[in-house]
């Protein structure tokens, strides 16, 4: 088992004819993902990596029964692409595209209310259910099928931690890059709710960073409701206040959102925090060994 995506996921790639879209379509297929359709308005009828391209997501879904979408389009069109995917009726939308204005996420959140559709991202590196499927840009080769769930606000830092986990000999059930923006579709807690029900997941690693208070909320949730062991990592201990550290969401305002506070709350809620990525992998290994 795994969460969010698996062997049966039928993926439509929005922006498939773009540079990133076509490259990663190839990578995803290589990993074993069922990429059933691509969409680029005006390019309907073409093929990319053997995948048929449609003009609209509605048409792609109708013709191929796609049930998930991944978005590789320029920022300016990404909001529209999210709505197009939602309206076409897919159950999962992974927005790899970044640069969406925050207020658009407020609207998208309201729009999703009551609909049977989950958004991951924006600014998400994607999802990998090890050995099953990958959606997005995470490098497939670092993953190994196993029992550790990984949830992260970051991209390459996730690779680093996943790589360490794999090198300990353990593997991953599903790894989700939830994205580094202030407002995102799927948060840590949403993923934990799914991992709670996934029998293949024995432990979860939460990779947080400065900014906001999602890590604090997550820690309290873990303490109250989550039965499996959770380990944490928080990036940005040396980050100065009031400066945006790359990610739009990674900014310490006033006294809230510091790494120190997040680490404190994690520890207080029973989530062991690694000082280094290697530490985290070691903690998991020790626990599950």
């Amino acid at each position, binding site marked *: 088992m795994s969460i969010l995506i698996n062997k049966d996921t039928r993926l439509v790639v929005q922006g498939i004819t773009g540079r990133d879209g076509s490259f990663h379509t190839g990578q995803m297929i290589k990993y074993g993902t069922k990429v059933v359709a691509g969409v680029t308005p005006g390019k309907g009828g073409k093929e990319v990596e053997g995948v048929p391209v449609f003009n609209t997501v509605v048409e792609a879904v109708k013709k191929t029964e796609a049930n998930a979408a991944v978005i590789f389009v320029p920022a300016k069109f990404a909001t529209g692409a999210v709505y197009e995917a939602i309206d076409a009726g897919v159950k999962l939308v992974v927005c790899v595209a970044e640069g969406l*204005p925050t207020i658009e996420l407020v609207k998208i959140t309201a729009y999703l209310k009551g609909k049977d559709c989950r958004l991951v991202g924006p600014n998400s590196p994607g999802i990998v259910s090890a050995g099953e499927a990958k959606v997005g840009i995470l490098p497939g080769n670092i993953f190994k099928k196993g029992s550790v769930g990984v949830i992260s606000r*970051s991209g390459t*830092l996730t690779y680093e931690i996943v790589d360490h986990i794999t090198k300990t000999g353990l593997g991953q059930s599903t790894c989700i890059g939830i994205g580094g923006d202030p407002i995102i579709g799927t948060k840590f807690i949403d993923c934990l709710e799914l991992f709670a029900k996934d029998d293949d997941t024995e432990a979860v690693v939460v990779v947080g960073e400065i900014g906001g208070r999602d890590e604090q909320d997550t820690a309290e949730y873990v303490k109250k409701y989550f039965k499996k062991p959770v380990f944490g*990592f928080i990036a940005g201990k*040396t980050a100065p206040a009031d400066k945006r550290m790359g990610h739009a969401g990674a900014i310490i305002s006033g006294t809230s959102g510091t790494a120190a506070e997040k680490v404190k709350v994690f520890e207080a809620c029973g989530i062991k925090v690694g000082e280094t990525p290697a530490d985290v992998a070691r903690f998991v290994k020790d626990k599950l060994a």
Partner: protein
Amino acid sequence: MKVHEYQAKEIFNKYDIPTPKEKMCVSIDEVIAASTELGLPCVIKAQVHVGGRGKAGGIKIAKTEQEVNEYAKQILGMEIKGLPVKKVLVSQVISIASEAYLGIINDRTAKKTVMMACKQGGVEIEEVARKKPEAIFKVYADPLVGFLPHKARQIGLFLYDDPKTAFACAKIAEKLYKMFIELDSSLAEINPLVVTDSGELIALDAKINFDDNGLYRHPDIELLRDRESEDVNELRARESDLSYVKLDGNIGCVVNGAGLAMATMDLVKHFGGEPANFLDIGGSSSPQKVQNALEILLNDKNVKVIFFNIFGGITRCDDVANGILVAKKALNIKQPIVTRLTGTNEDKAMDILKEAGLIFAQGMDDGAKKAIELLK
């Protein structure tokens, strides 16, 4: 993106939110002229993109012509937290009956736009939120219908007992929301919102920050950017599509990805070193981008060692390696370079770099340790 108080007030005025009579000045002569026009006493306020300018002596009330001259000279040219003050705002003195706080942000947790009001003005709202959350009245907007008039009235009635003042405040709250949404703001704040002795409401200080992701829709806002008051390296980084923040250490870090870049800084610190910067070269990096990154990095004269930490995914290690080679030559880099390159095309990268006289690391722990070692 931030703008100065005087710019924020111009924007507030466009949305019909009242502010005091004021003049932005860049010279002592202009300050004297402004104070004559506005009358004495007047307030002289430094225009810089950092908080705490009051404590730093950047805000003074001048009661006489002599004081105007004196304070103008003092403030124009002073540095606040490293930023030179090149502009001041000269303002009429308002007689204040009461002060309150009114602000608006997109709430990350609720995923909604929220208006916050507090009966104390001039406060640091995050501080109040932490210590006395019940003192803040929050009202959420619904994106379908906006910030409805009755919600604005609730805000007004929370702050003021007198219905007339309360409803005048409600009007301001509605305008503030409209401005926030239309301009893709990430923070709009009136702090303090004051009632004058004559019973009028006025935004004594005004602040508006903008969502960087929304700026493409607002070319006019982008024009307000005060390039002079920004760190020149951060500015150059942004123009090269890089993300750079200067720190006080001596180990220059070049990393792909924001989270990994932070983790790299943290790791350097963890093993006893001092990171010189945050530098994210982003996803698909070309050799040119690497060269730009190194140029920016080396403008910081504190940098004694350079630590490349690259986990290739979209980023190809050979691209980075080529960038290092070219830059090392072009910029005549003397500092030792520790490289940790893993992931996509790492073998090719090693081939490219094997003759380049770099120090290679196995993993980021090893890289950080080696970088620190080199400083000894």
